[in-house]
C-alpha cells in the first residue's frame, strides 16, 4: 500500500515534466526549419495544393490553437495523424514501440543479469587475473560503436557461420504470428505459436547481443563495486567470521546488498538504450521506434515527433519509478 502511494506520488511528480516535454517539443518542431507538407506533395504541387494539405493537418491554424487541439487530443489519447502516412500516430506507434521495447527490455534484462553474475564473480576474485580480464573486456565492449559492432556480428555470425536468420525483419512471416503487442516474442507466447517464438528468438540474437555488449560494462562495474563494498564491509566480515557457509553468505549477505544500487543505474541504461536503439535498429532492419522517430524528425512529421518524444519521456518516468520501487524493495533502509 505504501509502495502504491509512493508510486502515485512519483507519478504526480512526473506530470510537470511530461507537460514540459510536451510544450518544448511542440515549440521545437515548429521552430525547426523545414516544411512537413512539401515532403508529401510531390514536385508538381502548387501553393494551393500545399495550402489544402496544410489545412488537412490543421497546420493553417494559429499556433496556440494547434497547441490546444494537440493537448486536448493528448488527454483523450489521440496523438493526431501522421503527415507522412496519413495513419493515426497512436496506431503506428503501437506497432513500432513493441519491437523496440522488446529489444531494449531483453537486452537490459540480460545485461543486468549478466552484470550481476559477472560483477559478483569479479568482486569475489577482486585483484586476480580473472577479475582484471573481465573488467578490461567489458570496457572494450563499452568502447565499440554499436553500429559497427552490429555489422561485424552480422558478417561473422550470419554470413560467416550462418547461425542466425537473415538480419531483416523480426520474425519469419510464414509463422503467421498474429500481432498483439508488437513484441514478437511475447506475441508468440500469448498465441502459443512455437515456430514464431523460435524465429523471433533467432532474429533477436544479434541485435540483443550487440546492445548487451555495449551496455553491460557500467552495470557490471556498479555491481562489482557494490559487491566489493559489501565484501569489505564489517557486516559481511562479521558473517564470515561467524563461520557461515558459502551459500548462505552469497545469498543472504552478499547478493541483495550488492544489488541495491543496480536498479537506478539499470533505469538510466534503459533510458539511454531506448534513445540509442535507432542505430541498432538501422543495422538490423528492426523497424522500431527509434527509426520511426528519426524518420518523423527528418520529415518534420510533427505529430510523430511529438508523440515519440512524449512517449520516450513517459518511458523514462515509468522506468525510473519502477527502479525506485525495486530499490525500495531491495533496500530496507529506503524510506518511502
Amino acid at each position: 500500500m505504501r509502495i502504491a502511494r509512493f508510486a502515485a506520488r512519483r507519478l504526480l511528480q512526473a506530470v510537470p515534466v511530461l507537460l514540459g516535454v510536451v510544450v518544448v517539443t511542440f515549440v521545437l518542431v515548429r521552430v525547426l526549419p523545414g516544411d512537413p507538407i512539401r515532403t508529401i506533395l510531390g514536385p508538381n504541387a502548387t501553393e494551393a495544393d500545399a495550402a489544402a494539405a496544410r489545412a488537412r493537418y490543421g497546420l493553417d491554424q494559429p499556433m496556440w490553437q494547434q497547441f490546444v487541439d494537440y493537448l486536448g487530443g493528448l488527454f483523450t489519447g489521440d496523438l493526431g495523424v501522421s503527415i507522412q502516412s496519413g495513419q493515426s500516430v497512436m496506431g503506428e506507434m503501437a506497432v513500432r514501440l513493441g519491437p523496440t521495447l522488446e529489444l531494449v527490455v531483453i537486452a537490459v534484462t540480460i545485461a543486468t543479469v549478466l552484470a550481476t553474475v559477472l560483477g559478483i564473480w569479479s568482486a569475489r576474485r577482486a585483484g586476480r587475473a580473472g577479475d582484471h580480464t573481465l573488467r578490461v573486456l567489458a570496457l572494450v565492449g563499452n568502447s565499440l560503436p554499436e553500429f559497427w559492432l552490429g555489422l561485424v556480428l552480422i558478417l561473422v555470425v550470419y554470413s560467416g557461420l550462418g547461425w542466425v536468420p537473415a538480419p531483416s525483419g523480426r520474425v519469419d512471416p510464414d509463422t503467421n504470428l498474429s500481432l498483439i503487442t508488437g513484441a514478437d516474442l511475447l506475441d508468440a507466447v500469448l498465441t502459443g505459436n512455437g515456430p514464431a517464438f523460435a524465429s523471433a528468438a533467432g532474429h533477436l540474437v544479434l541485435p540483443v547481443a550487440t546492445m548487451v555488449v555495449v551496455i553491460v560494462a557500467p552495470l557490471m562495474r556498479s555491481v562489482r563495486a557494490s559487491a566489493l563494498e559489501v565484501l569489505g564491509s564489517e557486516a559481511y566480515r562479521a558473517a564470515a567470521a561467524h563461520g557461515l557457509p558459502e551459500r548462505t553468505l552469497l545469498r543472504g549477505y552478499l547478493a541483495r546488498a550488492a544489488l541495491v544500487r543496480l536498479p537506478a543505474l539499470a533505469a538510466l541504461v534503459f533510458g539511454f538504450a531506448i534513445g540509442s536503439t535507432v542505430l541498432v535498429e538501422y543495422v538490423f532492419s528492426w523497424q522500431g521506434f527509434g527509426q520511426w522517430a528519426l524518420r518523423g524528425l527528418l520529415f518534420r512529421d510533427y505529430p510523430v515527433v511529438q508523440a515519440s518524444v512524449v512517449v520516450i519521456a513517459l518511458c523514462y518516468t515509468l522506468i525510473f519509478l519502477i527502479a525506485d520501487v525495486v530499490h525500495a524493495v531491495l533496500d530496507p533502509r529506503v524510506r518511502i
Partner: protein
Amino acid sequence: MTLLDIRDLKVAIGSVQALAGVDLTVARGEVVGLVGESGGGKSMIARSVVGLLPDGARATGQVLFEDRDVLTMDAAALAAHRGAGAAICFQNPRGALSPTRVIGRQLTDRLVTHQGMDASQARSAAVDLFESVGIRAAARRFGSYPHELSGGQAQRVMISLATGCAPGLLIADEPTTGLDVTLTREILLRFREAADEEGRGVLLISHDLASIARICDRLVVLNAGAIVEHGPTTAILTTPAAPYTRTLLAAVPTLPTPTPHPAESGESGEAREAGEAGQAGQAAGSADCADPADRARPVGAGVSAESGESGESVPSAGSGDEVVRVEDAHVVYGSRFGAGGHHALRGVSLTVRAGETVGVVGESGSGKSTLARLMLGMITPSRGVVTLAGQEPSRLRGRELRALRCRAQLVFQDPIGSLSPRRTVADAVAEPLRAAGVKAPERARRVAAVLERMGLDGTYAERRPHELSGGQAQRVGIARALAGEPDLIVFDEPTSALDVTVQAQILKVIGEVTAERGRGSVFISHDLATVRGFCDRVVVLYLGRIVEEGPVEEVFARPRHPYTMALLAAVPSLDGEEETGRVRLTKDPEEAAAGGGCALAPRCPFAEDACRTEEQELRTLGRARVACRRAGALPDLEGPER
C-alpha cells in the same frame, strides 16, 4: 587446558609491525580484558583468533585454540573453528549487522550452521535468545532490519549472534564504544554472564579501562603491538607497574572530585607536549588536568544570584553581561514529507553570562546539539526567543546576521570532519576573521597568535586536516573558535571522538579557555564526569526538556531528579566495586513512549501513576531546580560522593 593460548604472535602488514610478539591466554569461564589505545593492535589479536587477518598480513607464532594452531588451519578446519570455536562481537554493531537481512534470519543462519537446528527450531530458539539478551518483543523484532534498531538493541543483537554460534570463546571488540553510559553497563554485564553462566571464555577489548574494569578477571594492557602489563584486575588498578598503564589510568575521568585545588603546576604544559608526541607518558592524575585553574572562581556569586531568582531563565553564576539568553525555546525539525516532525526542544530557558561556563548534559538525542545551534543562531526556534549579544538572530538577515554569528563560535564533536579537507589549517582558522573583514596581514598575525596559543607551531599552519591527529585537529577547531574573539564559545562534545589520553589534554585546553573572563562558555557532553571539572553550572536535558539545573557541586552532590541520578550512577569508575542502590533506568530511550506526563516516567524506577499524567515543571529545590514532582521525596540515594 587453556581455551586460547597465543604464543609470541607477531603480525606484520607491509612494513608495519602491528603485533610484536604477543602472549595471551584465556580460560573457560574467565573474562579477560584487553586494553590499549587506538591502533595498538587489539583488533589484530581478535582477528587472528578467527583467522581473518587483513590481506597481506604475515603472522608468525602460534594461536592455539584448544591446542590447535589457528594460523596453520586449512580452509575446512577454519570454517569449523569460526563461530563454533571463537566468535567475535564486533565493534560498531550497527555496521556489523548485514543491512539487508532481517536480524532474525541473521541469527537463525548462525543457529542452523553451528547448532544444527532446522528452520523452525532455529526460529523459536532465536526468539528465546533475543529475549535472553534483553530484547523486548523479541518475536516482533525477529523481522526487523538492523537500521530499525537503536544502538543498544543492535549491540544486544550482535551479542546474540555471537553467542548463537555457541562459541567456546567469545571475543568482544570494543562493544560499548559510542554507547550511552547507561547502556554500557548493562551490555557489559552480559559478558560476565556469558562467562559465569555459560562457561565461555570471554576476551573483552576496549580502549577505555574504566568501563571494563568492573567485570574483568584479568587485564592485559597492550601498547604499540606489545603487551606491557598483565595481571588480575585489582592488582593492575591499584598497583600498575608500567608507566603506560598509569597513563591510561590517569586519563580516565572520574566523578569523585579530586583535590579541589589542583596545582597549576608545570604539568599542564607538559601534558600538552606529551599529547603531541602521542605518548602522554607522565600525565599522571590527568583527572586533575580536566579540572584546571578556575576552581578559584567566585562560585558563591552564582549561589546567591540563583536563590533570589524564580524566573524562567536559569540563574546565572557569572557576574558579567548576558551573552546569550534562551527563553522558552521550542525547536521542531520538520519531517521531509508533509506533516509531523521531531520536537527536539520543548520549552528550554537558559542564560549564559560572560565569565561563566555552563555544562549541558543528557543522553544522545536529548537535544544538546540542537540547543547549541539555537544559541549560535543557526536555527530559528519555532517558539520562544533567543537573544545573542543583545540581538535576536532570527530578526537579522545577511551581513548583520553574519556579523552576529561571529560573536558566537562552536567547537565541534568531530574535529577532523569540521575542517574542510581541502583547506589548510591557517585557512580554517582565518575564516571567522575573513568573514569579519579583517585584512590579510592582520589576519595572518592573529592566526599565528592563536595557533601559538593552542600549542601549534608555524609548521601546522600549512597542513591539511588529514595531516593532523585528532587532538591536533581539535586544537585547530578551538583556535578557530577563539580567533574571532567571540563572546560565546559552545563546545559540543569536543572530546568524545578522541582517545582517552588525548581527551585529557584537550579538556585541559578547554579548561584554560573557559577560564577566561569576559566570555561565556557552554560545554556539552553526555558524560557528567567531564563536565564537573570546569563548569560553574550544569543543565540536564532529557528529551528536549531541562529536568534539572543548578551549580555543579550542588547537582553532583545531591542529584534530585531520577534521571540525573541515573546518569551519575552510570559513570564508570575504577574502583571496581559492585555498587548497589544506584539508580538504573529501565528500557532504552527509544522505547520510552512520550505520553502525557513526565517523559521519563516509562523508564523511571520511582514512577507513580501521577507521574504518567502530570506535566512536570521546574521547581526550585535548594540551590538547584528540578522538574520532578517527587524530587526531594525520593529515597535519599546519595550521589557517588562518599
